[in-house]
């Protein structure tokens, strides 16, 4: 295990953890329910760690990406259903990320939002074209570490640390009305969805193949998943805690991504604001890359095309055309003028509906001795995997009713 590579891998995972959905829901959760939803972030993070570790292990041992194996395991019909659901979910999410990063550029420069969306899409396409995989991942992931500004801001505002610590204990606040209870339930489901987005697992596993992981990299995979995502979730929890401290007492329910940047501006002024916006820019841009690439990986792997950014774009032409077309399709959604926050809501909603379809094949594959040999799921991975599968299935069933009952979490 190369310590430098491992450190870079962990830092990349930290910087790449937060995307537009986590940013928005963390800020809203804090203002609406104080510190009471911290435990849901922590709980969901364990879930994504479990499944990311599994997907990385499958890539390292079977030396095949998840979607190749998934088609073989599920067959053509169910595989196509999974693929279609995954494409739609990731496409909406990618559109939300492009819209989000265009908004951040608008806050930074004042230039028109739609123009920024076009410019940003062009920049993302160019960066994936020019840079090899490792550089793409590292650039966005490491620059996303500007998000640490939110952690520093939290320390600077002297929050009630005992209440933050208390937020890690599973709870439902007392004295909520029925509607508030349903809204709390909706936030729980939305946070699970935002943290455990399907694209994260597909990108992570395909990334393992891109980096030619083998059984010797099992420990690297484990540490990257645990430390990278664990520490990354602290960024989201910092945003939530800042919001609880700064917004909940003054009638602010952050509705737009720009509100989160105020969390760093209030203690630090303009520098805090700019650093927070830069962090948001790189984190959300990185997420846009991941969602688009995850979709392209899935399609190419499902149909057996050549794929990967470890190849030059012309060495895997159908894969290259696919990710470019997907970026343009996501941009097209943004250019319809649909509100970014609505895209975020739909991304979160659609993703939770497809999460069981995403994680069941992975659970079965990683537990299959024929593929995994001695690296098959141990009792901890098995137990946690099935526990979380049950939870995401329950969340998927509850998502639509809660969405309608609470007007998308607006009560």
């Amino acid at each position: 295990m190369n310590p430098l590579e491992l450190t870079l891998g962990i830092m990349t995972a930290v910087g790449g953890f937060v995307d537009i959905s986590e940013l928005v829901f963390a800020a809203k959760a804090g203002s609406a329910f104080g510190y009471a939803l911290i435990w849901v972030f922590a709980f969901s993070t364990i879930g994504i760690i479990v499944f990311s570790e599994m997907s990385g292990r499958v890539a390292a041992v079977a030396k095949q990406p998840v979607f190749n194996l998934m088609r073989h395991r599920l067959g053509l019909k169910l595989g196509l259903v999974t693929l279609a659901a995954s494409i739609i979910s990731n496409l909406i999410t990618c559109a939300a990320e492009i819209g989000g990063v265009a908004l951040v550029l608008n806050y930074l420069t004042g230039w028109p939002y739609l123009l920024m969306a076009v410019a940003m899409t062009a920049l993302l396409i160019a960066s994936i074209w020019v840079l090899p995989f490792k550089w793409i991942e590292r650039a966005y992931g490491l620059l996303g570490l500007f998000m640490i500004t939110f952690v520093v801001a939290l320390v600077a505002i002297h929050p009630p640390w005992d209440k933050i610590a208390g937020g890690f204990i599973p709870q439902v606040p007392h004295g909520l009305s029925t509607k508030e209870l349903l809204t709390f339930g909706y936030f729980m489901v939305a946070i699970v969805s935002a943290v455990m987005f399907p694209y994260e697992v597909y990108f992570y596993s395909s990334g393992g193949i891109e980096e030619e992981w083998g059984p010797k990299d099992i420990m690297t995979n484990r540490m990257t998943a645990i430390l990278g995502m664990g520490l990354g979730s602290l960024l989201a929890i910092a945003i939530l805690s800042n919001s609880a401290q700064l917004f909940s007492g003054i009638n602010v329910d952050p509705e737009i991504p720009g509100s989160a940047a105020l969390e760093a501006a209030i203690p630090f002024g303009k520098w805090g604001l700019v650093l927070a916006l830069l962090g948001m820019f790189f984190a959300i841009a990185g997420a846009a890359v991941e969602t688009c690439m995850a979709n392209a990986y899935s399609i190419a792997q499902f149909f057996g095309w050549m794929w990967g950014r470890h190849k030059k774009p012309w060495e895997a032409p159908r894969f290259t055309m696919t990710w470019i077309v997907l970026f343009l399709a996501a941009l097209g959604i943004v250019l319809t003028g649909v509100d970014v926050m609505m895209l975020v809501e739909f991304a979160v909603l659609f993703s939770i509906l497809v999460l069981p379809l995403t994680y069941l094949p992975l659970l079965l594959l990683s537990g299959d001795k024929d593929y995994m040999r001695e690296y098959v799921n141990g009792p901890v991975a098995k137990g946690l995997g099935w526990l979380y599968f049950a939870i995401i299935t329950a969340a998927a069933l509850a998502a639509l009713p809660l969405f309608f009952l609470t007007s998308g979490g607006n009560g």
Partner: protein
Amino acid sequence: MRRVWFLLALAACSKGPQADLQYIKQARSAGAEWALVNEQASAGKLTATYVGSMHQWLRQQIQTASSGLTEPDARYAIEMQALLSQPDDAAPEELRAHVAKLKQIEDSLESA
């Protein structure tokens, strides 16, 4: 459980103040944020570009909320229009006065 089904039915086909509650909340929050932005801007903590963008987006939020109302002549609708008529750099106290009124209406609807 009966309460949940009732709320579901209500969500599906209601008009009037209860249906407008989500828009009142949206406008109240956007107004409160507007006040916060202006307060921080006057303390020199925000860039002019950011403030300009936030004003634009927050106004849009209030405008969208106002357009979604099923009772355009209700007291809360008038309050939203009053908020929209404020200049971008309105004093935070002025904005918060309107927010407080919207909050009052919101609380009374929620407890109804």
